Protein backbone atom coordinates (compact mmCIF):
# COMPACT_ATOMS: atom_id res chain seq x y z
CA UNK A 1 0.00 0.00 0.00
CA UNK A 2 2.88 2.30 0.96
CA UNK A 3 4.47 1.45 -2.37
CA UNK A 4 1.43 2.61 -4.27
CA UNK A 5 1.32 5.85 -2.41
CA UNK A 6 4.97 6.76 -2.92
CA UNK A 7 4.55 6.43 -6.64
CA UNK A 8 1.42 8.49 -6.60
CA UNK A 9 -0.18 10.12 -3.60
CA UNK A 10 -3.12 7.78 -3.67
CA UNK A 11 -5.05 8.38 -0.46
CA UNK A 12 -8.45 6.89 0.12
CA UNK A 13 -9.54 8.34 3.44
CA UNK A 14 -13.09 7.17 2.88
CA UNK A 15 -12.28 3.54 2.11
CA UNK A 16 -12.32 2.70 5.82
CA UNK A 17 -16.01 3.52 5.93
CA UNK A 18 -17.08 1.02 3.27
CA UNK A 19 -19.57 -1.53 4.52
CA UNK A 20 -18.37 -4.98 3.49
CA UNK A 21 -19.90 -8.41 3.89
CA UNK A 22 -17.95 -10.45 6.42
CA UNK A 23 -18.00 -13.72 4.46
CA UNK A 24 -17.43 -12.51 0.92
CA UNK A 25 -20.02 -11.84 -1.73
CA UNK A 26 -20.99 -8.51 -3.22
CA UNK A 27 -24.61 -8.01 -2.42
CA UNK A 28 -25.53 -6.59 0.94
CA UNK A 29 -28.98 -7.67 2.00
CA UNK A 30 -30.49 -6.27 5.19
CA UNK A 31 -29.57 -9.47 7.03
CA UNK A 32 -26.04 -9.95 5.61
CA UNK A 33 -23.43 -10.10 8.42
CA UNK A 34 -21.08 -7.23 7.62
CA UNK A 35 -18.28 -5.38 9.36
CA UNK A 36 -21.10 -3.33 10.90
CA UNK A 37 -22.38 -6.53 12.52
CA UNK A 38 -18.88 -7.45 13.70
CA UNK A 39 -18.11 -4.15 15.40
CA UNK A 40 -21.54 -3.72 16.88
CA UNK A 41 -21.21 -7.27 18.22
CA UNK A 42 -17.84 -6.38 19.75
CA UNK A 43 -19.46 -3.33 21.36
CA UNK A 44 -22.12 -5.59 22.87
CA UNK A 45 -19.45 -7.99 24.16
CA UNK A 46 -17.43 -5.16 25.72
CA UNK A 47 -20.60 -3.82 27.30
CA UNK A 48 -21.35 -7.26 28.75
CA UNK A 49 -17.77 -7.65 29.99
CA UNK A 50 -17.88 -4.26 31.65
CA UNK A 51 -21.35 -4.13 33.15
CA UNK A 52 -22.24 -7.81 33.61
CA UNK A 53 -19.02 -9.78 34.13
CA UNK A 54 -17.33 -6.85 35.87
CA UNK A 55 -20.09 -6.63 38.44
CA UNK A 56 -20.69 -10.37 38.85
CA UNK A 57 -19.18 -10.45 42.32
CA UNK A 58 -21.51 -7.68 43.54
CA UNK A 59 -18.92 -6.70 46.14
CA UNK A 60 -19.53 -3.86 48.56
CA UNK A 61 -15.90 -2.87 48.04
CA UNK A 62 -15.74 -2.87 44.22
CA UNK A 63 -13.01 -4.25 42.01
CA UNK A 64 -11.56 -1.92 39.38
CA UNK A 65 -13.84 -3.14 36.62
CA UNK A 66 -16.85 -2.97 38.90
CA UNK A 67 -16.05 0.60 39.89
CA UNK A 68 -15.85 1.56 36.20
CA UNK A 69 -19.31 0.05 35.70
CA UNK A 70 -20.63 1.80 38.80
CA UNK A 71 -19.10 5.07 37.66
CA UNK A 72 -20.84 4.82 34.27
CA UNK A 73 -24.10 3.95 36.00
CA UNK A 74 -23.79 6.83 38.44
CA UNK A 75 -22.73 9.26 35.71
CA UNK A 76 -25.71 8.59 33.44
CA UNK A 77 -28.12 8.17 36.35
CA UNK A 78 -27.17 11.59 37.72
CA UNK A 79 -27.36 13.11 34.26
CA UNK A 80 -30.89 11.79 33.70
CA UNK A 81 -31.97 12.89 37.16
CA UNK A 82 -30.47 16.36 36.88
CA UNK A 83 -31.52 17.13 33.32
CA UNK A 84 -34.90 15.45 32.97
CA UNK A 85 -35.93 15.75 36.59
CA UNK A 86 -37.28 13.13 38.93
CA UNK A 87 -40.00 11.99 36.50
CA UNK A 88 -37.37 11.14 33.91
CA UNK A 89 -35.62 8.51 36.03
CA UNK A 90 -37.70 5.70 34.55
CA UNK A 91 -36.14 6.36 31.14
CA UNK A 92 -32.67 5.83 32.56
CA UNK A 93 -32.23 2.34 30.98
CA UNK A 94 -33.15 3.80 27.60
CA UNK A 95 -30.63 6.65 27.91
CA UNK A 96 -28.02 4.25 29.28
CA UNK A 97 -28.52 1.99 26.25
CA UNK A 98 -27.88 4.88 23.87
CA UNK A 99 -24.87 6.10 25.83
CA UNK A 100 -23.25 2.68 26.14
CA UNK A 101 -23.70 2.01 22.43
CA UNK A 102 -22.38 5.39 21.28
CA UNK A 103 -19.42 5.59 23.63
CA UNK A 104 -18.32 2.00 22.95
CA UNK A 105 -18.81 2.32 19.18
CA UNK A 106 -16.83 5.58 19.18
CA UNK A 107 -13.97 4.15 21.23
CA UNK A 108 -13.84 0.78 19.47
CA UNK A 109 -13.82 2.60 16.14
CA UNK A 110 -10.52 4.19 17.15
CA UNK A 111 -8.76 0.82 17.30
CA UNK A 112 -6.51 0.70 14.20
CA UNK A 113 -8.18 -1.27 11.36
CA UNK A 114 -11.49 -1.13 13.19
CA UNK A 115 -14.77 -0.05 11.63
CA UNK A 116 -16.42 2.96 13.25
CA UNK A 117 -20.14 2.22 13.17
CA UNK A 118 -21.02 5.69 14.50
CA UNK A 119 -19.32 7.32 11.52
CA UNK A 120 -22.31 6.33 9.41
CA UNK A 121 -25.30 8.57 9.15
CA UNK A 122 -27.46 5.48 8.72
CA UNK A 123 -26.57 4.63 12.31
CA UNK A 124 -26.54 8.08 13.88
CA UNK A 125 -29.69 9.16 12.04
CA UNK A 126 -31.48 6.03 13.23
CA UNK A 127 -30.42 6.79 16.79
CA UNK A 128 -31.48 10.42 16.45
CA UNK A 129 -34.82 9.49 14.89
CA UNK A 130 -35.35 6.98 17.68
CA UNK A 131 -34.88 9.77 20.21
CA UNK A 132 -36.98 12.22 18.18
CA UNK A 133 -39.88 9.81 17.72
CA UNK A 134 -39.85 8.50 21.27
CA UNK A 135 -39.71 12.04 22.68
CA UNK A 136 -42.58 13.20 20.43
CA UNK A 137 -44.75 10.16 21.18
CA UNK A 138 -43.96 10.31 24.87
CA UNK A 139 -44.70 14.03 24.93
CA UNK A 140 -48.17 13.58 23.44
CA UNK A 141 -48.81 10.52 25.59
CA UNK A 142 -47.86 12.34 28.78
CA UNK A 143 -49.21 15.82 28.16
CA UNK A 144 -51.71 15.26 25.36
CA UNK A 145 -52.26 18.30 23.21
CA UNK A 146 -50.58 20.35 25.93
CA UNK A 147 -47.28 19.12 24.53
CA UNK A 148 -47.74 21.71 21.77
CA UNK A 149 -47.60 24.37 24.47
CA UNK A 150 -43.86 23.87 24.29
CA UNK A 151 -43.87 25.88 21.05
CA UNK A 152 -45.99 28.69 22.46
CA UNK A 153 -43.53 30.85 24.39
CA UNK A 154 -45.85 32.32 26.99
CA UNK A 155 -43.15 34.51 28.50
CA UNK A 156 -42.73 36.45 25.22
CA UNK A 157 -44.91 39.40 24.13
CA UNK A 158 -48.10 38.25 22.41
CA UNK A 159 -47.11 39.76 19.07
CA UNK A 160 -43.91 37.80 18.92
CA UNK A 161 -45.41 34.47 19.93
CA UNK A 162 -46.49 33.23 16.46
CA UNK A 163 -43.06 34.05 15.06
CA UNK A 164 -41.33 32.34 17.97
CA UNK A 165 -43.66 29.38 17.60
CA UNK A 166 -42.62 29.00 13.98
CA UNK A 167 -38.95 29.18 14.94
CA UNK A 168 -39.47 26.71 17.80
CA UNK A 169 -41.24 24.26 15.49
CA UNK A 170 -38.49 24.48 12.88
CA UNK A 171 -35.81 24.00 15.53
CA UNK A 172 -37.75 21.05 16.92
CA UNK A 173 -37.75 19.32 13.54
CA UNK A 174 -34.09 20.17 12.93
CA UNK A 175 -33.15 18.44 16.18
CA UNK A 176 -32.71 14.91 14.75
CA UNK A 177 -30.62 16.30 11.90
CA UNK A 178 -28.21 18.21 14.14
CA UNK A 179 -28.29 15.42 16.70
CA UNK A 180 -27.17 12.81 14.16
CA UNK A 181 -24.84 14.87 11.99
CA UNK A 182 -22.97 16.21 15.02
CA UNK A 183 -22.05 12.70 16.11
CA UNK A 184 -21.53 11.12 12.68
CA UNK A 185 -19.68 14.12 11.29
CA UNK A 186 -17.26 14.33 14.20
CA UNK A 187 -16.39 10.65 14.09
CA UNK A 188 -16.12 10.56 10.31
CA UNK A 189 -13.98 13.69 10.11
CA UNK A 190 -11.56 12.50 12.77
CA UNK A 191 -11.08 9.11 11.17
CA UNK A 192 -10.68 10.64 7.71
CA UNK A 193 -8.05 13.10 8.96
CA UNK A 194 -6.06 10.30 10.57
CA UNK A 195 -6.22 8.33 7.35
CA UNK A 196 -5.06 11.34 5.28
CA UNK A 197 -2.08 11.83 7.59
CA UNK A 198 -1.37 8.11 7.37
CA UNK A 199 -1.30 8.51 3.58
CA UNK A 200 1.21 11.33 3.90
CA UNK A 201 3.32 9.19 6.23
CA UNK A 202 3.49 6.54 3.53
CA UNK A 203 4.54 9.07 0.91
CA UNK A 204 7.10 11.23 2.71
CA UNK A 205 9.86 8.72 3.55
CA UNK A 206 12.04 10.01 6.43
CA UNK A 207 9.99 13.16 6.86
CA UNK A 208 7.03 10.94 7.69
CA UNK A 209 7.94 11.48 11.35
CA UNK A 210 5.91 14.67 11.15
CA UNK A 211 2.62 13.09 10.03
CA UNK A 212 3.15 10.17 12.43
CA UNK A 213 3.50 12.57 15.36
CA UNK A 214 0.45 14.42 14.07
CA UNK A 215 -1.46 11.15 13.98
CA UNK A 216 -0.49 10.51 17.62
CA UNK A 217 -1.73 13.98 18.57
CA UNK A 218 -4.94 13.69 16.56
CA UNK A 219 -5.53 10.24 18.01
CA UNK A 220 -5.46 11.73 21.50
CA UNK A 221 -7.87 14.41 20.38
CA UNK A 222 -10.11 11.78 18.80
CA UNK A 223 -10.24 9.83 22.06
CA UNK A 224 -11.54 12.99 23.68
CA UNK A 225 -13.97 13.60 20.82
CA UNK A 226 -15.24 10.00 21.07
CA UNK A 227 -16.15 10.44 24.72
CA UNK A 228 -17.35 14.02 24.47
CA UNK A 229 -19.60 13.28 21.49
CA UNK A 230 -21.13 10.33 23.32
CA UNK A 231 -21.69 12.62 26.29
CA UNK A 232 -23.20 15.35 24.10
CA UNK A 233 -25.47 12.86 22.34
CA UNK A 234 -26.68 11.52 25.67
CA UNK A 235 -27.20 14.86 27.38
CA UNK A 236 -29.13 16.16 24.36
CA UNK A 237 -31.31 13.07 24.59
CA UNK A 238 -31.95 13.95 28.23
CA UNK A 239 -32.74 17.57 27.32
CA UNK A 240 -35.26 16.44 24.70
CA UNK A 241 -36.73 13.95 27.16
CA UNK A 242 -37.30 16.74 29.64
CA UNK A 243 -39.61 18.44 27.13
CA UNK A 244 -41.60 15.24 26.79
CA UNK A 245 -41.75 14.46 30.49
CA UNK A 246 -43.05 17.97 31.04
CA UNK A 247 -40.44 19.50 33.26
CA UNK A 248 -39.74 23.19 33.28
CA UNK A 249 -40.41 24.82 29.92
CA UNK A 250 -38.08 27.49 28.64
Amino acid at each position, binding site marked *: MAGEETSKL*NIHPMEQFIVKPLFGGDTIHWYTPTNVTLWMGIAVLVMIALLVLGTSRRSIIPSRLQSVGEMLYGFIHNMVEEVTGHDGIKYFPYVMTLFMFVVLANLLGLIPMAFATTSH*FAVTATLAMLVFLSVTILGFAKQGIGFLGMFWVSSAPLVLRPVLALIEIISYFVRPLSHSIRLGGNVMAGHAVIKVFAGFAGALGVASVVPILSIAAIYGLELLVAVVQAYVFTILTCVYLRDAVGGAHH
Partner: protein
Amino acid sequence: MATTATEAVATGAEHAEKTGLPQLDFATFPNQIFWLAVTLVIIYLVLTRVALPRIGAVLAERSGTITNDLAAAEEFKQKAVQAERAYNDALTMARGEAAKIVASAKADIQKDLDKAIAKADADIAAKAVESEAKITEIKAGALDAITEVAKDTARELVIALGGKADAKSITAAVAARLKG
Protein backbone atom coordinates in the same frame (compact mmCIF):
# COMPACT_ATOMS: atom_id res chain seq x y z
CA MET B 1 2.65 -1.96 -9.01
CA ALA B 2 1.24 0.18 -11.74
CA THR B 3 -1.57 -2.30 -12.28
CA THR B 4 -2.49 -2.37 -8.58
CA ALA B 5 -2.38 1.40 -8.51
CA THR B 6 -4.66 1.66 -11.51
CA GLU B 7 -6.88 -0.99 -9.98
CA ALA B 8 -7.06 0.97 -6.77
CA VAL B 9 -7.84 4.10 -8.70
CA ALA B 10 -10.39 2.17 -10.68
CA THR B 11 -12.10 0.78 -7.58
CA GLY B 12 -11.94 4.20 -5.97
CA ALA B 13 -13.40 5.76 -9.06
CA GLU B 14 -16.00 3.04 -9.18
CA HIS B 15 -16.97 3.77 -5.59
CA ALA B 16 -16.97 7.47 -6.24
CA GLU B 17 -19.08 6.91 -9.28
CA LYS B 18 -21.42 4.62 -7.44
CA THR B 19 -21.89 6.45 -4.19
CA GLY B 20 -19.37 9.17 -3.47
CA LEU B 21 -19.25 8.82 0.28
CA PRO B 22 -19.73 5.32 1.69
CA GLN B 23 -21.94 7.07 4.24
CA LEU B 24 -24.31 7.96 1.41
CA ASP B 25 -24.40 4.48 -0.08
CA PHE B 26 -28.08 3.92 0.57
CA ALA B 27 -27.80 0.27 -0.43
CA THR B 28 -26.11 -0.45 2.90
CA PHE B 29 -28.68 1.43 5.00
CA PRO B 30 -31.13 -1.43 5.62
CA ASN B 31 -28.23 -3.62 6.69
CA GLN B 32 -26.84 -1.04 9.11
CA ILE B 33 -30.22 -0.13 10.53
CA PHE B 34 -31.12 -3.79 11.01
CA TRP B 35 -27.92 -4.61 12.87
CA LEU B 36 -28.17 -1.40 14.87
CA ALA B 37 -31.67 -2.38 15.95
CA VAL B 38 -30.46 -5.85 16.94
CA THR B 39 -27.55 -4.32 18.88
CA LEU B 40 -29.72 -1.79 20.69
CA VAL B 41 -32.28 -4.43 21.63
CA ILE B 42 -29.55 -6.71 22.99
CA ILE B 43 -27.92 -3.87 24.95
CA TYR B 44 -31.30 -2.74 26.28
CA LEU B 45 -32.25 -6.26 27.37
CA VAL B 46 -28.89 -6.97 28.99
CA LEU B 47 -28.97 -3.64 30.79
CA THR B 48 -32.55 -3.87 32.05
CA ARG B 49 -32.51 -7.58 32.87
CA VAL B 50 -29.07 -7.94 34.41
CA ALA B 51 -26.64 -5.07 34.57
CA LEU B 52 -28.62 -2.08 35.82
CA PRO B 53 -30.63 -3.84 38.56
CA ARG B 54 -27.45 -5.48 39.78
CA ILE B 55 -25.40 -2.28 39.87
CA GLY B 56 -28.33 -0.40 41.37
CA ALA B 57 -28.65 -3.05 44.07
CA VAL B 58 -24.93 -2.95 44.82
CA LEU B 59 -24.98 0.85 45.08
CA ALA B 60 -28.10 0.79 47.26
CA GLU B 61 -26.62 -1.91 49.44
CA ARG B 62 -23.41 0.06 49.81
CA SER B 63 -25.16 3.29 50.69
CA GLY B 64 -27.37 1.28 53.06
CA THR B 65 -24.32 -0.22 54.71
CA ILE B 66 -22.71 3.18 55.03
CA THR B 67 -25.89 4.70 56.47
CA ASN B 68 -26.26 1.82 58.91
CA ASP B 69 -22.64 2.10 59.96
CA LEU B 70 -23.00 5.84 60.47
CA ALA B 71 -26.20 5.31 62.46
CA ALA B 72 -24.49 2.63 64.55
CA ALA B 73 -21.55 4.96 65.14
CA GLU B 74 -23.95 7.73 66.17
CA GLU B 75 -25.69 5.31 68.53
CA PHE B 76 -22.39 4.24 70.06
CA LYS B 77 -21.45 7.88 70.47
CA GLN B 78 -24.74 8.55 72.24
CA LYS B 79 -24.12 5.55 74.45
CA ALA B 80 -20.64 6.79 75.27
CA VAL B 81 -22.02 10.23 76.14
CA GLN B 82 -24.70 8.59 78.27
CA ALA B 83 -22.16 6.41 79.99
CA GLU B 84 -20.01 9.43 80.70
CA ARG B 85 -22.98 11.30 82.11
CA ALA B 86 -23.91 8.29 84.27
CA TYR B 87 -20.33 8.03 85.44
CA ASN B 88 -20.26 11.73 86.33
CA ASP B 89 -23.60 11.44 88.09
CA ALA B 90 -22.41 8.44 90.04
CA LEU B 91 -19.24 10.29 90.91
CA THR B 92 -21.15 13.33 92.15
CA MET B 93 -23.52 11.13 94.09
CA ALA B 94 -20.66 9.19 95.64
CA ARG B 95 -18.98 12.45 96.59
CA GLY B 96 -22.18 13.67 98.26
CA GLU B 97 -22.59 10.38 100.01
CA ALA B 98 -19.02 10.47 101.20
CA ALA B 99 -19.46 14.02 102.47
CA LYS B 100 -22.63 12.97 104.27
CA ILE B 101 -20.89 9.97 105.79
CA VAL B 102 -17.97 12.13 106.86
CA ALA B 103 -20.34 14.67 108.42
CA SER B 104 -22.34 12.04 110.28
CA ALA B 105 -19.18 10.35 111.43
CA LYS B 106 -17.92 13.69 112.62
CA ALA B 107 -21.18 14.32 114.45
CA ASP B 108 -21.05 10.87 116.03
CA ILE B 109 -17.51 11.37 117.13
CA GLN B 110 -18.37 14.80 118.50
CA LYS B 111 -21.27 13.34 120.41
CA ASP B 112 -19.11 10.57 121.84
CA LEU B 113 -16.45 13.07 122.63
CA ASP B 114 -18.90 15.40 124.33
CA LYS B 115 -20.33 12.52 126.28
CA ALA B 116 -16.87 11.35 127.29
CA ILE B 117 -15.87 14.90 128.26
CA ALA B 118 -19.04 15.36 130.25
CA LYS B 119 -18.49 12.05 131.95
CA ALA B 120 -14.90 12.90 132.64
CA ASP B 121 -15.96 16.29 134.01
CA ALA B 122 -18.53 14.63 136.22
CA ASP B 123 -15.98 12.10 137.39
CA ILE B 124 -13.49 14.82 138.04
CA ALA B 125 -16.10 16.84 139.91
CA ALA B 126 -17.06 13.82 142.00
CA LYS B 127 -13.45 13.04 142.68
CA ALA B 128 -12.85 16.65 143.63
CA VAL B 129 -15.79 16.66 146.03
CA GLU B 130 -14.57 13.40 147.52
CA SER B 131 -11.08 14.75 147.83
CA GLU B 132 -12.35 17.93 149.38
CA ALA B 133 -14.29 15.89 151.93
CA LYS B 134 -11.21 13.84 152.61
CA ILE B 135 -9.11 16.95 152.91
CA THR B 136 -11.64 18.52 155.26
CA GLU B 137 -11.66 15.35 157.28
CA ILE B 138 -7.90 15.23 157.34
CA LYS B 139 -7.81 18.89 158.20
CA ALA B 140 -10.26 18.33 161.02
CA GLY B 141 -8.30 15.29 162.13
CA ALA B 142 -5.14 17.33 162.08
CA LEU B 143 -6.73 20.16 164.08
CA ASP B 144 -7.95 17.71 166.74
CA ALA B 145 -4.55 16.11 166.85
CA ILE B 146 -2.86 19.50 167.12
CA THR B 147 -5.27 20.59 169.85
CA GLU B 148 -4.58 17.36 171.69
CA VAL B 149 -0.86 17.72 171.28
CA ALA B 150 -0.98 21.38 172.20
CA LYS B 151 -3.02 20.56 175.32
CA ASP B 152 -0.71 17.76 176.31
CA THR B 153 2.37 19.88 175.65
CA ALA B 154 0.92 22.82 177.49
CA ARG B 155 0.00 20.60 180.49
CA GLU B 156 3.41 19.03 180.52
CA LEU B 157 4.98 22.45 180.29
CA VAL B 158 2.82 23.74 183.08
CA ILE B 159 3.64 20.69 185.22
CA ALA B 160 7.30 20.99 184.36
CA LEU B 161 7.28 24.60 185.38
CA GLY B 162 5.76 23.58 188.63
CA GLY B 163 2.34 24.82 188.08
CA LYS B 164 -0.83 23.05 188.58
CA ALA B 165 -2.35 21.81 185.45
CA ASP B 166 -5.84 23.02 185.34
CA ALA B 167 -7.41 21.16 182.42
CA LYS B 168 -10.17 23.63 181.91
CA SER B 169 -8.00 26.72 181.61
CA ILE B 170 -5.46 24.92 179.46
CA THR B 171 -8.17 23.88 176.98
CA ALA B 172 -9.48 27.39 176.91
CA ALA B 173 -6.01 28.83 176.39
CA VAL B 174 -5.26 26.38 173.60
CA ALA B 175 -8.59 27.04 171.95
CA ALA B 176 -7.96 30.76 172.22
CA ARG B 177 -4.50 30.32 170.72
CA LEU B 178 -5.75 28.09 167.94
CA LYS B 179 -8.42 30.49 167.01
CA GLY B 180 -6.00 33.34 166.78
